[in-house]
């Protein structure tokens, strides 16, 4: 592993395990793709909350309990159910509990890793609505990791597109959807099947082997615009217009 992670100006990779533990949950919270397996089946919901609060703050049990109840109720779950076990909740409810757990310490960054992928579409929309509301209510930043471009268009302000372990494009959501600069982003957008799809498009070939990734631009074997330079030189991330970056040798052609 190499590189740096800056959070509020501090490099997290330099932190001791102990310091890192304090940041987790307190400043950076994480919710996951599969809420069904993320809660300890042997612990009541309440104990998940109390444990987390006590791990970070020295508050009285009464206060911790009050805060736990408030967090749960704010997600639309009856406070008496705080004494239930995880298996007594449905998938959507468990994801709400996970969000409540993530927010009880009021973190400034919430990372949501495919938070709705395992849920049905209506529940997915409910959860996305909650996440958007929270972002405003808590003045919190949200890092949403997803493969679903529809969700990106609906929820996000800025978008980073990754391909084969490399950042290929970064910009505002309008830039990305209306003027994609990287051929991969273009292909990705074209291949989405949505209600107005008239014709199917797909990106030729298949994702590369990451043990021996392609030379130069990792996308070149599947790129219809590829030139000899693409196989030789790794394209740098260039700011083609204010706030809109792409890692393509010919990015300016698509402006």
């Amino acid at each position: 592993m190499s590189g740096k992670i800056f959070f509020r100006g501090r490099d997290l990779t330099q932190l001791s395990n102990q310091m890192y533990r304090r940041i987790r949950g307190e400043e950076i919270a994480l919710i996951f793709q599969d809420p069904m397996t993320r809660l300890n089946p042997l612990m009541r919901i309440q104990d998940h909350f109390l444990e987390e609060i006590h791990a970070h703050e020295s508050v009285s049990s009464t206060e911790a309990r009050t805060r736990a109840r408030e967090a749960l109720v704010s997600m639309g779950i009856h406070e008496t159910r705080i004494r239930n076990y995880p298996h007594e909740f449905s998938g959507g409810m468990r994801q709400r509990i996970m969000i409540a757990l993530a927010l009880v310490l009021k973190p400034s960054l919430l990372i949501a890793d495919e938070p709705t992928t395992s849920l049905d579409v209506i529940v997915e929309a409910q959860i996305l609505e909650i996440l958007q509301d929270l972002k405003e209510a808590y003045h919190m930043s949200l890092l949403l990791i997803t493969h679903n471009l529809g969700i990106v268009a609906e929820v996000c302000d800025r978008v980073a597109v990754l391909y084969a372990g490399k950042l290929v494009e970064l910009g505002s959501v309008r830039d990305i959807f209306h003027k994609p600069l990287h051929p991969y982003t273009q292909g990705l957008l074209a291949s989405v099947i949505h209600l107005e799809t008239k014709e199917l498009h797909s990106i030729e070939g298949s994702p590369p082997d990451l043990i021996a990734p392609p030379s130069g631009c990792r996308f070149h074997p599947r790129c219809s615009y590829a030139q000899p330079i693409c196989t030789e030189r790794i394209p740098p991330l260039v700011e083609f217009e204010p706030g809109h970056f792409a890692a393509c040798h010919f990015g300016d052609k698509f402006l």
Partner: protein
Amino acid sequence: MPKTGSLAAYAVTRLFLSLPMLLILLTIVFVVLRVIPGDPIAALFAGRAPPDVVAATRHQLGLDLPYWQQYINYVAAVLTGNLGTSIGESYHGKSVLFVILDKLPATVELAIGAMIVASIIGIATGVVSGTNRDKPSDVALRLYGTIIFVIPVFWLGQILQLIFAVGLGWFPAQLRFSGLPSPNQITGLYTVDSLLQGRLDLFLVAVQHLVLPSLTLGLVLSGFFTKTVRANLLRTVNADYVEAARARGIPEGRIISRYAFKNALIPVVTVLGLQFAILFAGAVLTERTFSWDGMGMLLLKSIDSADYPMVQGVIVIYALIIVALSVVIDVINGLIDPRVRY
């Protein structure tokens, strides 16, 4: 939406469900003793008694009746707690149940001692092994688990006797008690009885005698704990909810104890039920090695002296204990795992 139900309801139902198992075990004992070829009475007397005595004994025990009638009599007798009277030399004419109840505490004391040794050693080695995956300590402890598990318990007993009794003289090699008059019978467990009487000296003697047999049996059983605790810890330390707890900043020690270890324990408890079979089989051998006067010794003596009702009685009591323990294990499981009951 499932709601967590009462543990009592679960326990009662589970108890009810144990009846078929009990009936099957009783039937097996019946089939083995009376139906399969081979005349148990003749085999037990082994030609040492004249034919008319054998015939009289058969009649006295109701063994000349048709099988179905024998079966009904037998099940009815067992269910009413009437296990008959002994026909062997040592206990002739005594109530089988009474004799067994007299020997039972010795076996129970040995079993408890062994279980304590096994769980302490087994869980400790299992945790060390499971949290140090593929390091030298893990490999060594896995070898320990595999090897100790297949060591003949009676041979291990002999070796421990050679070292600690004959060689070092730290512990007595034989019997449950010696030197002083044994404590008054209250529970029948010498360690408990001596404490109840407030006699620390007797307690020490009892413990001294208990150490080697418990250690022998416990060591052999510990291999099982080492292996299962390790395997389940490996599974739970990488579980999704453990990763989620880490992401919430829960301290590592707490994660191991409350998430990984407790969750790993559930399957261990489940298979623990099957370990009682090994425990009691091992106890019979250990009793013999240490002249520990319990149910196992009683069974061997009864087989030797052709005491047919006593043999049947001892096996039936073992079956009852096994069934009861399987219920207890399931209830304990319900106690720690809320998903089991509702």
